[in-house]
């Protein structure tokens, strides 16, 4: 590789878009060329300056976008080709059932709106028609599911709110809700309970976005043995390359001999090009050999 091609590859190297061979050749050239080393350092500084200028959407803007979108969705019908085709085939069955469902929904809607109630004693019932079965008599059997809702307002530090947030982080089936609960908890002072919840999320949460949030929040504890154990486990077992990369970064905050073997093992079996490169780089940073001998 000459200076001109090395210079063309500065950004591709930083973005991890070079093949292993190209990367090796690029690094070999850099080692022997002071001019390119300086130019590359400048390129890295530009990347860093650009990182710092990223425009992140502020939470209030996101909240406004979500609220307004929901209002618009309520008045916009999606196109549903499959459903309409089905309707064409089964009008006799679906139309009476649909009409009855509308009557039921209307009945409950009228119940909720007829009597105003104070905000925090509100106890609305959300009903859904779960099952509709026409009977031989010509009547229709409708199974309605009621969900009772309650509202609680309080400081995130209040014991009850805190407990509910921890429960939502662990147990909610809604990934967005788990992530939001975790965000709120992360803004609170650290506690063993929170750390346990974060470790649980890192290991068990099915959503990679939530696991990533847990990883970020575990950064201050990256030196603790239990956290390092969880990071090593994530590195070897998590199926998301983003998580594995982040786990390497956190483990590298404390460069211990113990992680060398782990990284060497990962280099051998890692299927993701970027994670493998990150692993190799980590090993080089620790003056360790890339392979096991």
């Amino acid at each position, binding site marked *: 590789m000459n200076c001109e091609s090395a210079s*063309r590859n*500065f*950004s*591709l190297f*930083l*973005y*991890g*878009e070079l093949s292993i061979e190209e990367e090796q050749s690029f690094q070999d050239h850099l080692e022997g060329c002071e001019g390119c080393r300086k130019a590359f350092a*400048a*390129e890295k500084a*530009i*990347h860093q*300056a*650009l*990182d*710092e*200028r*990223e*425009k*992140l*959407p*502020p939470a*209030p*803007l*996101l*909240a*406004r*976008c*979500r*609220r*307004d*979108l929901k209002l*618009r*969705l*309520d008045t*916009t019908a*999606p*196109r*549903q*080709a*499959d*459903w309409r085709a089905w309707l064409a085939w089964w009008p006799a069955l679906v139309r009476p059932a649909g009409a009855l469902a509308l009557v039921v929904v209307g009945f409950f809607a009228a119940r909720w709106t007829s009597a105003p109630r104070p905000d925090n004693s509100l106890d609305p019932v959300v009903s859904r028609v779960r099952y509709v079965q026409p009977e031989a008599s010509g009547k229709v059997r409708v199974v309605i599911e009621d969900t009772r809702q309650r509202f609680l307002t309080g400081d995130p530090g209040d014991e009850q709110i805190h407990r509910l947030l921890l429960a939502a982080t662990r147990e909610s089936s*809604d*990934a*967005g809700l788990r*992530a939001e609960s975790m965000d709120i908890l992360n803004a609170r002072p650290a506690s063993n309970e929170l750390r346990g919840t974060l470790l649980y999320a890192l290991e068990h949460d*099915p*959503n*990679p*976005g939530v696991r*990533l949030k847990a990883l970020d929040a575990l950064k201050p504890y990256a030196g603790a043995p239990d956290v390092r154990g969880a990071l090593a486990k994530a590195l070897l077992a998590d199926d*998301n*390359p*983003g*998580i*594995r*990369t*982040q786990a390497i*970064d956190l483990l590298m905050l404390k460069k211990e001999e113990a992680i060398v073997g782990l990284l060497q093992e990962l280099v051998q079996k890692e299927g993701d090009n970027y994670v493998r490169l*990150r692993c190799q780089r980590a090993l080089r940073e620790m003056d360790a050999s890339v392979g096991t001998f």
Partner: protein
Amino acid sequence: MTREATSAADESPAPGVEEAVLIRAAQKGDQDAFEQLVRAYDRGVLRVAMNLLRSTDDAYDVYQETFLRVYKSLHLFRFDCNFRTWLYRVVTNVCLDYLRKRKVRREEPAVIETDEGQWNRMDNVPEERAQGDPQRNLLNRQLGERIEAVLKGLTAKERMVFELRHYQGLRLRAIGETLGTTEEAAKTCLFRATQKMRAALGDFV
């Protein structure tokens, strides 16, 4: 470098089964399922819009238009590509429309009203206030202005490729798919964009 991988994973629901179930439910008209999909991806969509258009008002409009388009045309999604790629194709098209339409950059107020009260867009700019070193602050501000200028100087496509690679962490191959072009063309666009940045910012860093 971490950004590359973290952004890629950020906010995505578990790929595969869980996401496919949500999409199928949303295709059948389940609004809850659609809202779950929105929540899984909307931070990324808003970030793309903010960085491409550098305007909160436009980013708000792009967010609304993108998800309404997706809502109305979700029945056309046939699982022949990644949902995220499909969604980013929509948002980049909406952004391109905005970039093309926008002849003159509008001035925006520094403070916008939101449900949670006022939000000052300058709060999002890295620290350059009185408590910092004045000389550093000045350099920081000048650097910020240079970056804004060079970003404005990129073509719409260069800006799009740069945003998706640098801030969203998409691989060049995925960017090619998103923009309906090849990986090689995306690489060329990225190279041009970074060349322009190097030329504009090289003496500053």
